[in-house]
């Protein structure tokens, strides 16, 4: 493989990391509060708003059931509005972020719903405000699960980011399609796949390790 190609692989990896990092960060920042809302706004819960809860739930479901590749195409006008273009790495961040939000929201909701209701009752009995319960009890107790949720989000994002290559986004997916597939260079394809596998492995192990570190529920710690 030529040095030129190796350089391309290196820069494509950086592009992928860039897309995943930005989309993961913004998507999580927006998805987290939505997930908290979904988990706490049912009837008789901390911030009861059952109607809004149902509406938000519907929107989240709709966004999650839209195939990613269709989402990418469907929001091209929006992407153009924000980034001024619909092609390239920067443009790819927009659909990646939009897809991340409902994904994170559902994972966060599940993580928070896992928490024993007795802890919420205990905090209420101490005179905690609903906000104090969210920050001091729910988020603190859900930390291991939230870490795993974030890990899963990043792993999925790596996969999605390879898909945006098909519609002119940059990164490893783009490289794989253009060189590996269209120019029929199986060695490039192989390297792209290996780099993706290594990335996912690294993220998963780091996430698992961090989650274990946060988890105080077993005697092993």
């Amino acid at each position, binding site marked *: 493989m030529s040095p030129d190609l190796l350089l391309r692989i290196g820069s494509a990896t950086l592009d992928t990391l860039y897309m995943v990092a930005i989309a993961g960060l913004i998507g999580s920042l927006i998805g987290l509060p939505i997930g908290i809302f979904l988990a706490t706004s049912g009837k008789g819960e901390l911030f009861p708003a059952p109607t809004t809860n149902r509406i938000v739930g519907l929107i989240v479901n709709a966004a999650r059931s839209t195939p990613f590749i269709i989402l990418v195409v469907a929001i091209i006008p929006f992407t153009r509005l924000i980034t001024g273009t619909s092609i390239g790495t920067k443009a790819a961040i927009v659909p990646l972020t939009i897809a991340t939000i409902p994904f994170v929201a559902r994972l966060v909701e599940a993580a928070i719903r896992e928490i*024993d209701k*007795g*802890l919420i*009752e*205990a*905090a*209420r*009995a*101490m*005179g*905690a*405000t609903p906000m*104090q319960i969210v920050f*001091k*009890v729910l988020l*603190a*107790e859900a*930390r291991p699960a939230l870490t795993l949720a974030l890990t899963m989000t990043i792993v999925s994002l790596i996969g999605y980011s390879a898909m945006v290559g098909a519609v002119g986004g940059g990164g490893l997916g783009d490289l794989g399609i253009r060189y590996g597939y269209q120019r029929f260079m199986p060695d490039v394809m192989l390297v792209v796949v290996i780099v993706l596998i290594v990335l996912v492995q690294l993220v998963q192990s780091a996430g698992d390790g961090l989650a274990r570190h*946060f988890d*105080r*529920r*077993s*005697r092993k*710690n």
Partner: protein
Amino acid sequence: MSVSAYTAPAPGDAAVIFDGVSKHFAASGKSGAFTALDTVSLSVGRGSITGIIGRSGAGKSTLIRLVNGLEKPTGGTVLVDGVDVGALDEAGLRELRRSVGMIFQHFNLLSSRTVFGNVALPLEIAGMDKQAIEKRVRPLLDLVGLADKHGRYPAELSGGQKQRIGIARALATEPKLLLSDEATSALDPETTQSILELLKRINADLGLTVLLITHEMEVVKAVTSDVAVIDHGRIVERGHTFDVFTHPRHETTRAMLSGLPGSKLPDAVSRGLKPQADDGDRAVVRLTFFGAAAERPLISQLIKSVGAEVNIIAGTIDEIGGRPYGSLVVAYGADAETAGRAERFFTENGLVTEVLGYVA
């Protein structure tokens, strides 16, 4: 000997007053409408350890949650130190809850916080600064005997230790009232005793009123000064614990007491028990004695005055609130003559009797 008449604490001496309190749950989803509490009136004396005992589903969990506003009554009023809980808004409720501690069956400790962090939580919630928290938490950990565990996580502790942390946490805001929701039900008998001892000590040393709910008569016997028996959302019996144990009036109370060791009849006897006597049957009678009667050689006197064979079937000598009492189940001839002599003996000696049935 007569039962000392039970007088409810005067309103000024009551830490908690339930006045005609009802709680109905409307039908929702799978569960139909039902009444958890039906016009319950009860007062909890300041400085007392009051127990509310009932089977599961009797309404005791709902009752205790009305005190700190975790549940709202659908009728009647709940007064805590003269404050109508039902009339408080959310901010008022939070204020109240900071002056009422609560401990739980499953401890409800945060797994992500150390022992120290768990006890500090209510103080953080109250907005206390770090140094003041540090000063408050240390002596509490000493009080419950777990000062050496302050950096441990709940998962590293035993059930009894977890409940001690729960107690320290409940005491952190220096409440005047402690609510105990089946606090020993998940613990083994030995640990239960040590937790109950701790509650007793706190009650005596800090002058804290304790309101506890339980389904175990053992718990009521071991620590409470007053008890109320709840069944199907109604208070069916209430009084000083000693009186309720020695003179149970209601069926539910009797049934719950019969589970205590020493009160339980051997299976062989209880299986053969009949409500009516046939010729040649023997009467099975429970005698309860206390005070001076506990110190007399009752059995030998009984055998002499009945003039017939007396079998001892079950028995126990115990103490409630420092007062000794005995309970003895005996059997003797059910014929009119023997029974008459026995009854005279019981009346003369001030024994409380209850005919449980007859055996062949």
